[in-house]
């Protein structure tokens, strides 16, 4: 995976630079580009083809957003037809399409971010500035699956010891409550021993440092600089109303000197991930053929 070698902070910065501008402007090109980029990225990186269920759900969501907007929003001048005495306008349909594309694009980018930026990487980012919080999050992340496992084990054992009786609801309920209260006791007990083990290894001494396996390399610095430059341009365009777009009453995009450079830069940012992935894949094939 080409993303394994990018520093988590740069990764997060990248995903935010893709998602934020797409949400904060109504320009229809933005979500379309974001959607195109993420679809390409998914085609290149997704290990298994998406399940039919996922595709169906996504399509349903898309349709729902597209349909609801013109049904409840009757602004816009270009009337297509009337439904129950209300006008369904072209502008409202297009606005629905734009929103749907935006929702789906952000969902898919989030999915990618989740896959590339694992919990451990979030902690590495947090750890620098909020070491205590990072440690807390880390131990919480450990505790949740542990608690679930303990609860399941206790439930099974108690079932084999007849705590739940022969299936009558009252016994089941009181048994469940007993197991739950014991689980709470267990977690307190666990917390005490963990804190003992922490103290034994010097937790609480002054001058704690944090360690991370991720190093900020030259490549990361270059990528981050480029990203910041691109972001600056896109944000300036956003602030300068270069990417503003009105759907109502009629479609009307504002244009100035920054519109085209802004859109192009955003397009480059969005396409960066699939290009980077594709390039690394090509390179890899190249190296492999030489081995």
């Amino acid at each position, binding site marked *: 995976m080409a993303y394994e070698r990018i520093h988590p902070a740069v990764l997060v910065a990248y995903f935010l630079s893709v998602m934020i501008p797409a949400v904060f402007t109504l320009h229809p090109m933005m979500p379309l580009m974001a959607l195109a980029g993420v679809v390409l990225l998914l085609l290149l990186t997704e290990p298994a083809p998406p399940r039919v269920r996922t595709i169906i759900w996504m399509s349903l969501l898309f349709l729902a957003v597209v349909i609801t907007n013109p049904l409840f929003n009757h602004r816009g001048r270009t009337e297509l037809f009337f439904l129950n005495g209300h006008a369904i306008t072209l502008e409202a349909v297009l606005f629905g399409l734009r929103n749907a594309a935006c929702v789906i694009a952000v969902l898919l980018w989030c999915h990618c971010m989740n896959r590339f930026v694992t919990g451990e990487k979030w902690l590495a980012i947090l750890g620098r500035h909020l070491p205590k919080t990072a*440690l807390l999050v880390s131990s919480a992340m450990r505790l949740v699956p542990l608690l679930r496992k303990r609860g399941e084990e*206790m439930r099974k054992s108690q079932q084999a010891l007849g705590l739940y009786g022969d299936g009558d609801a009252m016994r089941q309920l009181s048994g469940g409550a007993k197991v739950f209260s014991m689980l709470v006791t267990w977690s307190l007990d*666990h917390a005490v021993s963990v804190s003992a083990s922490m103290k034994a*290894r010097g937790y609480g001494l002054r001058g*704690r*440092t944090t360690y991370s396996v991720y190093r900020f390399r030259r490549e990361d610095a270059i990528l981050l600089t480029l990203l910041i430059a691109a972001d600056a341009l896109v944000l300036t365009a956003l602030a300068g109303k270069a990417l503003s777009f009105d759907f109502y009453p009629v479609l009307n995009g504002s244009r100035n000197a920054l519109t085209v450079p802004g859109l192009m830069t955003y397009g480059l940012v969005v396409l960066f991930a699939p290009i980077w992935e594709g390039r690394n894949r090509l390179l890899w094939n190249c190296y492999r053929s030489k081995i």
Partner: protein
Amino acid sequence: MELLQVENLTFTYPDAKKPALTDVTYTVREGTFTVLCGASGCGKSTLLHLLKKELAPFGKKSGSIRFDGTDYESLDSRVSASQIGILMQDPDSQIVADVVWQELAFALENLGTERSVIRTRVAEMATYFGIESWYHKRTGELSGGQKQLLNLASVMTLSPRLLLLDEPTAQLDPIAAGNFLSMLERVHRELGVTVLIAEHRLEDILPMADRVLVLTDGALTLDGTVDSLADAVREGHPLLAGMPAAARLWKLLGMPGDMPLSVTEGREMLRAVCASNVTPKASLNNAETAISKATPDTADAAVSETRKSKSADSAESAASLSEVYFRYERNGKDVLRDCSVDIQKGEHFCLLGGNGSGKTTLLHIIAGILRPYAGSCRLFGKKLAAYRSGELANGITALLPQNPKDVFVTECVKEDWLLACKTTVPEAEREETVRRTAEMLGATHLADCHPYDLSGGEQQKAALVKVLLRKPKLLLLDEPTKGLDARYKEELLAVLKKLKDESVTVLTVTHDLDFAAVSADRVGLCFDGGVTAVKPTHEFFTENSFYTTAACRIAGKMFPGAITCEEIVEAVKGEQA
């Protein structure tokens, strides 16, 4: 050089009537390996915790502890944190972080080590301990043995001078325990760390030790080399039951000379015994007849009886599984595959096998917790599926789970015991049953405690009392001897004997071969998803040369058929007669 000096240490817990430790005095030299032994609850843990300043329990303390010449009262907390490492019993409750590398870096971070130094030190430790392949794994996904290795590595990142270990292998299976102890020995030998370890597994640990300390009821009753243990053992010290098979045999035979510890030494001793007697050929025959006389005949008789009747009457089986398949996930691997086994009424059946061979799964299926997706299971002649929900757990089967903590659901042990009794019985009678059952296992003193305040061995005991109070026809035990000292094992054996008289069927899953050898009627080996090699106990152990008891390996070709020390002794006596 003396690293640790303890003088006249007496310690009393608040509200306790008598001190947990009385007048303990000893020194530990730098670079030595000291084993601390004694029965459960004799004060081993208290002593170890007092040596680690941060974990010292509250209570009244007198006497002094000096580390490297400095009194504990004035010991710098940075020195104490980095130079004294401690490892406890439960692997899970010592891990702080979510991912392995975070855990390894934790102690170094606390001491404010620089990033570049941490990187080197963590890399060094991961390589040394063979952690590399799971360096990025989540700590929750590790096996118990890996967790305890991680805990050891995590303590070692600070390169401590003194390592305190409180029964670190009690929760591990024998293979993981062996790995852990050999890693510990390597750490001691190659890095020169001073080790002070409390441990039940004397068989594995004594060959590594320079020195042995024995605690009895809070007082130090023995302090010397491993050889000096010999005198105590010769006089029948309670420690004897936990000694390696060779040493036990040495005592039972009343041999002179050095106490043997390993199988090889034991075999040499036995050879010497044979050589000094009649010709080997004759002795062999004698031995065989002696064994058949000596073996606990009740067990063998029961087996032959059941074997005779087996073909005739299928209703005689307590549990019978045929061609059972089970998996945990739909796309997962079969944990049980074409698994068939038949457990006879009234017998004690021991199921042995490695980790992940499906032993516990099989037990859970019989207990009705898990449901196989193919094959048939019958309990006492009735299909498992035909039992109503909860009917099974009500007087038919009762399961002692691997983790005894799972058994308790109240804040007081006695309350849990009462909860296990049948509700139809009047209260006074229930109290009486509880009292009798607890007495039988020597657990009466645990009644008023909180279950989580008990030590691992005591929890096991209290849990077994609760399981027995369910009055099952088929008792299912999952690793009942895990973390137990030798004395309690004997008590457990007595209980099993009593259950046999009451013709309760017992199915035990265990790693403990010695336990199986002395208690089981028949033994089965779980392997590759099925139960193979179901045989009467003697046959099973004598036919195996590797997967067998230490006593059987010592007896070897000299006394074929003997699988316990007692049987070897009988054989030798038979030969001398």
